């Protein structure tokens, strides 16, 4: 499964690219500002210069930030397309949100509540809808978030690469039980998943 | 302030009212012919023409200053852009 690019990497790359530039910019602007205030304080620099503008400088600081902003946009868009293009052969799970829990339905017809069990190293596509108000499925570990809307089918996909437990939450305010609408994602080995998904547990 | 307030003659007002009534008749008439999706557009066109009459005559826009006329057009344009941009979503969903 190494030929599939995990969108987590793309999202993180975009994030670090943008936040990196932001830190540099913030640091520079703050330092310059503080330096000016101290260097040109009235007691030390009583006669101000009369500078009203400088079109070369102004053009430069319109042009350069525009280029940087466009580069940020591109990085964000690449990450977004990564999140949206589902690779072939993904395990499809139907997700139904309701106040206040998550229902997961597997291809075999097996259902679980507030627990999503998936095999490791297999892309998983979630087809999401809601029974009542808008909810939003959020799995921080996989950078996945999409609204569950009644009457609309939305989707998300992720690639679990490590066996373990991750948490999922509702991120669209849905009422008094909003904060309790959490669940767990169990990433298990492929064999364990196949065995589990076939077994009839009385649902 | 529009320096002199314009008083519209009764004749103009009467003619406008008549035009509006005739156009209402046309709208009703147009619904009896089935042209598929064109029907909606015809109804909307007639409604826009009527709205135009009301604005220009009853609401005095014809006799207002340039600033107000442009402000109004800008507002319509703004609304059109807003609704248009929703179609980035709706048309491609």
């Amino acid at each position: 499964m190494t030929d599939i690019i995990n969108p987590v990497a793309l999202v993180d790359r975009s994030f670090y690219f943008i936040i990196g530039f932001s830190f540099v910019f913030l640091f520079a602007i703050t330092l310059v500002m503080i330096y000016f205030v101290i260097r040109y304080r009235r007691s030390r620099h009583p006669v101000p210069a009369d500078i009203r503008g400088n079109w070369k400088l102004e053009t430069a600081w319109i042009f350069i930030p525009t280029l940087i902003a466009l580069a940020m946009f591109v990085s964000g868009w690449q990450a977004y397309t990564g999140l949206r293009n589902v690779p072939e052969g993904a395990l499809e799970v139907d997700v139904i949100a309701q106040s206040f829990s998550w229902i997961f339905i597997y291809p075999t017809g097996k259902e679980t509540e507030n627990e999503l069990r998936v095999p490791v190293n297999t892309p998983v596509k979630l087809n999401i809808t809601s029974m009542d108000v808008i909810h939003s499925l959020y799995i921080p570990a996989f950078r996945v978030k999409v609204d569950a809307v009644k009457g609309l089918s939305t989707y998300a996909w992720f690639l679990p690469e490590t066996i373990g437990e991750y948490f999922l939450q509702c991120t669209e305010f849905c009422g008094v039980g909003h904060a309790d609408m959490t669940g767990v994602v169990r990433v298990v080995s492929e064999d364990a998943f196949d065995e589990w998904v076939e077994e009839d547990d009385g649902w | 302030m529009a320096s002199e307030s314009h008083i519209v003659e009764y004749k103009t007002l009467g003619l406008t009212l008549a035009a509006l009534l005739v156009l209402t008749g046309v709208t009703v008439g147009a619904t009896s012919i089935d042209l598929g999706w064109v029907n909606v557009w015809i109804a909307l066109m007639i409604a826009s023409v009527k709205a135009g009459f009301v604005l220009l005559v009853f609401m005095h826009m014809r006799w207002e200053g340039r600033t107000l006329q442009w402000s109004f057009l800008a507002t319509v344009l703004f609304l059109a852009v807003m609704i248009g941009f929703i179609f980035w979503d709706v048309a491609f969903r």
Partner: protein
Amino acid sequence: MTSFYQTPEPAGFTGIRSWLITFDHKRIALLYLFSILFWFLLAVTLGGLIRLELMFPGKTVLSAQMYNSVFTLHGVIMIFLFIIPALPAIFGNFFLPIHIGAEDVYFPRLNLLSWYLYMAGGIVAIVSLFSDGFPDTGWTFYVPFSISTNTNVSTAVFAAFILGFSSMLTGLNFITTIHKLRAKTMGWLQMPLFTWSLYATAWVQLLATPVITITLVLVVVERFFNVGLFDPARGGDPILYQHLFWIYSHPAVYIMILPGMGVISEIIPVSARKSIFGYKAIVASSLAIAIAGSLVWAHHMYTSGMSDTAVFVFSLLTFVVAIPSAIKVFSWVATLYKGAIEMTPPLLFSLCFIYLFSVGGLTGLVLGAAGANIHVHDTHFVVAHFHFTMFGGTGFAFFAALHYWWPKMFGKMYDFKKAYIAAILVTAGFMLHYVPMFVLGLQGMPRRYYDYLPQYAAGNFFAGFGALCMIAGIGLMMVNLLGSLARERTAAADDPWGGVTLEWTIPSPPPLHNFDKDPEVMDYPYDFTKVADAGPGAGSMDPETGK
């Protein structure tokens, strides 16, 4: 000279009652000042309650239902009753006519009506609290939840509806005033930048606010008649509401921030005694923000299920709108270069504004990028981001404006030392409050959560601690400002900061008729050559006496 406080009172309307029927823009501004301060302090208290509840896991001071109502109320009051009206309605009303050499706004009666609508909206909001349980929808009133919840959404929505009218009428009034009442010698490019920012804001108010009023009507129609506009089973569109809501509410954030930028553009050149760097670029960027800012609303909806094409378009436009804001920040900092800078409380608040607003703007880039947004959307990261822009931005501009124009409005100077301590306390508390929330958001803590997973405990504790510092700072600031009114010896000079815009050419507080002779308009609105020639001491004051 008698100030506007000593206006002759009509028979039967003495004292406070003469204020309630006043058409004087200065008195209306003060009516707004005290009503807005009341709502601000109430909403700050509610915000404190939210943080207190979240300081420790589990239920502490609020129940879940109560918590939901409190954050809704905090949002509704802060947005509709504080940030949107704060700068235009208080300082715009007071100083816009003076800045352009006018006696009053163009429609003084309409101005008073706007204040009454504002108060009516506030009262309806309070009534909804005590009638049937305050709505628990968040200030966004998303459908279908706002239609199906059985709390009192209709009344709260009606309150926002009334407040929308107040905002629109103020905008209309300002546009007309600027077009019609400018001093004959004042051309468009001789207007102060605060006035320019109000002009751009007023257009957005006038054009975008009707959209929210209609949208809120639709919510009420749905609640009472169940038409199905947003119900796909009956041909409606489930996320159309979000489009309509953000068509107003995104431009609204520019309604909030533009006047704040205008305030900073006034304070920085006066403190540096040097012309603003790039006057025309700042004017152009205000207009560009007003126009481009109206076209980016759907960046609040990347995860809503809207089309990928829309995500592409709105993400691209969002990055475009970042440029004019950056230009302003560069211009402010460049204005300081080779100035003769005097540190004053308004300048300190302005510098904090530039820093905090930059953080807010830069984290906005993370949110504007489509892929990076998905992870942090609707988490504490977003909450921290918009508090940096709204509170660190507009809120600090409001504090700066209070300290800058207080001596002009009341003729009293406050204590500088207390003002500095308050500014540092608020800023430090602010950082301690909101920086942990960025981290919490990246860890995945959603917003509007009453309770949270154990890994979020540390961040929430620090945030709560920071909030308490911040509230203490705000309290000290209020005590300092309001306390100055009671003291006799702190009468302020007419021009305590060495400003050159027209408000500093008239007495403090201004007389009933703003100008007794035609105001002298300068060719260039930020020409400090005369002030600077008068020597280093001119215009600056002794903080002890305020002279």
